């Protein structure tokens, strides 16, 4: 008898479905896409070391480095974000380059379509260490470009 009462209540309440293109809200602690901020990145590569699935690649060049992230390879564990935060704290910064947004990676059709790479020039060290006066080889500051938005086209900027 219980089940019939339940069926009747379901009929009265109507459907609870999310109709097709709608997405549900995610909670604040949702671990989604990793977002990279080139202005804050110091090039320590801790995130590459801590990444469990080799989604982050780091190639150091002369005076610049290339950081790339493939959401299709990522397992959204958050270790890279934790590592970046710890390393930044150790150096006395409160901001760090990696954060995890509440966005979900989009559906794609070609292998490797979502991979994003950034080439960041190395900056001179922060004010606290400027007294040592060892110049890094890079020139001016790296200006930021758009962060890693899901599905956004990468900005093509001029080389340094």
């Amino acid at each position: 008898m219980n089940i019939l009462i339940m069926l009747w209540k379901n009929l009265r309440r109507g459907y609870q479905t999310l109709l097709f293109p709608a997405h549900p809200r995610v909670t604040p602690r949702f671990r989604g896409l990793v977002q990279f901020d080139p202005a804050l990145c110091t090039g320590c590569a801790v995130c590459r070391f801590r990444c469990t699935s080799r989604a982050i690649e780091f190639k150091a060049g002369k005076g610049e480095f290339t950081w790339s992230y493939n959401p299709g390879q990522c397992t959204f564990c958050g270790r890279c974000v934790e590592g970046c935060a710890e390393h930044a704290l150790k150096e006395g910064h409160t901001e760090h380059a990696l954060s995890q947004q509440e966005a979900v990676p989009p559906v794609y059709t070609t292998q490797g379509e979502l991979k994003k790479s950034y080439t960041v020039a190395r900056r001179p060290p922060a004010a606290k260490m400027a007294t040592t006066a060892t110049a890094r080889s890079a020139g001016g500051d790296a200006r930021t470009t758009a962060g890693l938005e899901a599905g956004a086209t990468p900005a093509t900027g001029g080389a340094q």
Partner: protein
Amino acid sequence: MKLLKRLMCTARRRSPWLFHMNSGSCNGCDIEIVAALSPRYDAEQLGVRLEGSPRHADILCVTGPVTRKAVGAVKTVYDQVLGPKAVIAIGSCPATTNVFIDSRTLDGPLDKHLPVDVFVPGCPPRPDAIIAGVAKAAQILAERGNKAPQPIVAIAAETTEEVNQ
């Protein structure tokens, strides 16, 4: 004739029947596929039916990095799916083998063996992302018509961007 063709294209878009195949997955993605059929996300609003036999289905949903023992099974099941068909790789495992990269028991991403049409990334992907992937695959099926699926493409080149100085 054109009317019949449009009718068939609409029918293929509005009635995607799935067959789900697990090629060594941890079952996280499989659970999310079942969750996509639950009342909250309800894949049936798109006409999706989870079929019991690969001969009945149009779309093959594969989860799991393809283990060496599963390669033959995946290829057999793909051959058993008939007619205009599409393949969805659900989760990041079939697309890129995710955390199991370098494992000795795997045989490459799914791309190596089957022509994959849609990748649904996530670990596991949310059920609404899976439904979006199925809708996209149904759209691809409708547009493809009776042509055979494309041969296996190489991995697309990465897009690099230079930071403005």
